[in-house]
């Protein structure tokens, strides 16, 4: 059962994507570690970390695409799950500092010493163990999503109402984490990490490994998403997106389906956050900002909603553009980025991947003029009806 479930995920396109991803996962660290710095093909560590960050963003975008692209749930709060995963990892990394903090306190992180806390808050217990932290990376976002989704989907909150309360959720968390009394370092967040699983986070090898881990996580989550969307459950999700009440009258408990993908998606976002933190070296409440969630949605839209691969491409592309613009035209990059969003919406309504595959499908249909085999082909899907 499991094998057929996974096997379904791997058609030609998916295999192509995974192959490319594998190549990158292998090549980038290799070019970074094995070649001398002056070699023309050497990839600087800077680029490795940067691309590692893109990969975690891509995973976040993937998780957004799963709920939005396939189930029509527009989350404007996915950054919350990303940040919670990040905080779980950040807490582990903080506990690893041990006596190497500036105050040398063996138990308390610096910011607690500094604000005269004398005991470690209970919710920090256990985070010195990696397995526990890793579990929390999945559980905290997952549980929050489950509880939130349980109420929201049961009450049939949908469309913009749902979008806005997800935004309220992340905004409330933003404000809460800003509070120093919460014990998460307030605005400064968690920083100054030393090592992860015993390896120095600053070392080139660790960075390369984290990059590879991000790539592998992305690949695995991609396969899971793919398996989900190509199963009958995936068809039900699309059915929910296109005609929710029809699905209900067919006897499907829409809220259970929504809850299922919503929770899975939140956990994926949590994983992305957990991989993000050691690579950028900081987690702070700014990650909860509603604008971040909106950006994640934009990556998906740019790449192509409901295509999975598109989400990945969109995330990498937009963030690459951002990196490039902020250095190349620091004063005007917002014009370029804003312009890009407007352009994509107006001229590529299906996103990059949607548009490309559409044209591809048109060409090939003209060439062969044969029916495609049954099964879902994202290419010929009409523009989904949003907000439903």
């Amino acid at each position, binding site marked *: 059962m499991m094998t057929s479930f996974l096997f379904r995920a791997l058609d030609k396109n998916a295999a192509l994507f995974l192959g490319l991803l594998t190549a990158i996962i292998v090549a980038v660290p290799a070019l970074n570690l094995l070649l001398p710095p002056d070699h023309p093909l050497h990839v600087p560590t800077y680029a490795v970390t940067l691309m590692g960050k893109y990969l975690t963003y891509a995973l976040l975008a993937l998780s957004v695409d799963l709920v939005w692209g396939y189930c029509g749930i527009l989350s404007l709060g996915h950054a919350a799950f990303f940040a919670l995963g990040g905080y779980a990892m950040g807490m582990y990394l903080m506990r690893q500092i041990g006596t190497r903090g500036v105050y040398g306190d063996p138990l308390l992180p610096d910011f607690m010493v500094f604000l005269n806390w004398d005991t470690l808050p209970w919710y920090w217990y256990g985070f010195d163990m990696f397995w526990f932290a890793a579990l929390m990376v999945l559980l905290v976002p997952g549980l929050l999503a489950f509880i939130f989704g349980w109420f929201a989907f049961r009450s049939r909150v949908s469309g913009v109402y749902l979008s806005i*309360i997800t935004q309220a959720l992340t905004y409330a968390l933003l404000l809460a984490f800003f509070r120093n009394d919460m014990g998460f370092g307030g605005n400064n967040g968690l920083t100054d990490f030393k090592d992860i699983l015993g390896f120095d986070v600053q070392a080139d090898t660790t960075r390369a490994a984290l990059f590879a881990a991000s790539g592998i996580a992305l690949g695995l989550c991609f396969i899971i998403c793919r398996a989900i969307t190509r199963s009958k459950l995936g068809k039900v999700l699309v059915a929910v997106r296109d005609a929710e009440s029809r699905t209900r009258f067919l006897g499907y408990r829409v809220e259970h389906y929504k809850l299922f993908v919503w929770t899975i998606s939140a956990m994926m976002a949590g994983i992305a956050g957990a991989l993000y933190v050691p690579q950028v070296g900081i987690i702070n409440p700014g990650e909860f900002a509603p604008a971040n969630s909106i950006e994640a949605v934009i990556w998906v839209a740019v790449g192509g909603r409901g295509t999975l691969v598109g989400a990945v491409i969109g995330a990498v592309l937009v963030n690459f553009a951002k990196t490039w613009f902020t250095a190349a035209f620091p004063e005007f990059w917002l014009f370029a980025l804003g312009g890009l969003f407007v352009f994509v919406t107006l001229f590529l309504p299906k996103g990059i991947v949607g548009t490309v595959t559409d044209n591809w499908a048109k060409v090939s249909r003209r060439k062969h003029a044969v029916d495609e085999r049954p099964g879902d082909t994202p290419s010929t899907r009409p523009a989904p009806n949003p907000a439903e």
Partner: protein
Amino acid sequence: MPYLKSLLVVLCLLILPAGSAHAQEDTESLRPLINELAGGGFSETEQQLGVLAATGNPGVVPALEALADGDLYARKSDGVVFIGERDGRVYKLTDPLTLEPAGEERRRDMKKIKVNNGLRRVIRTALGTLTLMAPDPATRLAAADAMFKAQDPGSIEALDLALTQETEPRVRRKMEAARAAAVLKSDKPEAVKLGAIATLEALGNRDALSVLSGFLPEAQGAEVPATETAMARIDKTLAAWGAAENVWYGISLGSVLLLAAIGLAITFGVMGVINMAHGEMVMIGAYVTFVVQEIIRTSAPGLFNYSLFMALPLAFLTAGLVGIAIERGIIRFLYGRPLETLLATWGVSLILQQAVRSIFGPTNQEVGNPDWMSGAFELGQMTITYNRMWIVVFSLLVFAGLMLVLKKTPFGLYTRAVTQNRRMAASMGIRTPWIDALTFGLGSGIAGIAGVALSQIDNVSPNLGQGYIIDSFMVVVFGGVGNLWGTLVGAMTLGVVNKFLEPYAGAVLAKILVLIFIILFIQKRPRGLFALKGRAVDA
């Protein structure tokens, strides 16, 4: 403060006989004394103030006023003191005694005679004594207020004298309070002090409480219980007023939310465009106000008090036109794809922010309050600031105006027709593209005039819009999308709830609690406060 006391006495004597004919010829003799002001530190200045006052010469008044305003300068080369007015890199100088122009000097060649809060208090009290019997009641009131704050036993005589002639009840009350406050600091007998306590208790406000609690440690014998009862009574009254004040704060916050959200209630609520650029429309309105005020400042300073009235239509037009441009250029291609409007308008919002940053710079711009929006008035024991009050009034007027437009004009009828059934409306000959553009323009224009109002209480910076966008969406969704009354009630509810939570939970937690409240509320009523019911909803 012995100097202060002598200063007061002298000034009182000076004014009361209303005879200072001999003053003019002596002015020149004051010059060395005034030049002495440039001596050194604050204590020297205070000392010199005493000396100046001791001359008993009203010729010092302009110099005193200039000193209080920080406009008194000494020339570095020869130490001569002038009243200076900044003009670019130079000061325009005025003689402090003759008030004749005295040329100009480079700024770096002049030294300012420094004044601090302590000195300002001394001067305030001195000038207060001078004006205790001025013809204008408002000036007398201010003078009495200065006396009240000074709490100087030396002022009792002057106050007694002023009270014999005072007819205005408002001013009388203040003078009596000032006298009572001064009495408590004096060595008058217990009976007199008890009377003063009673006067202050009758006054019953925060200032009285402040004076009484300052007196309590010094009180003796029967004064102690009397003071304590008086304080307890005042406390009780103030607590009751405190609740009323909270409601007012809530309404005031609600009106700000309403203003911020009401344009969005059109573009998002009525038209279904998830308009992330809404905040930037508010920002445009605020910047229009800034530009209008700048132009007025440079070309017609006299019109400053009318600047907001001029800014309103301009802000409406500017934001409205930008809105129409966005609708024609982008949004019209996206009808039926509301979530994609989110993407595009987010892009527009980035562009608009950066545009404003490029044009006006990233820093805050100064938008002043006209006189009629500055200050506060007392309602019972509540202080109501004019700007908040006018914003409440203004927000309700905007709301009423909008309702009128939508319900009573053909344009409103068309708008409702188009938003309810576009195809039907089109087939009935309504030019739907025009209506779309105008409706979006209307929503944006309303956001623009909201910006005019918000410029009065908040930063005018490129980030202005970002600060309101989330709250605006919350309000519209909480109230129920597509229902203007919902927006009104939603804004007011959230405002009041927030303000009632704030004293207990603190500002941060209050905001978090309000957000959680919204999340839970939406569970209960998935379509907001004023949801439409019936089978049409899900169609």
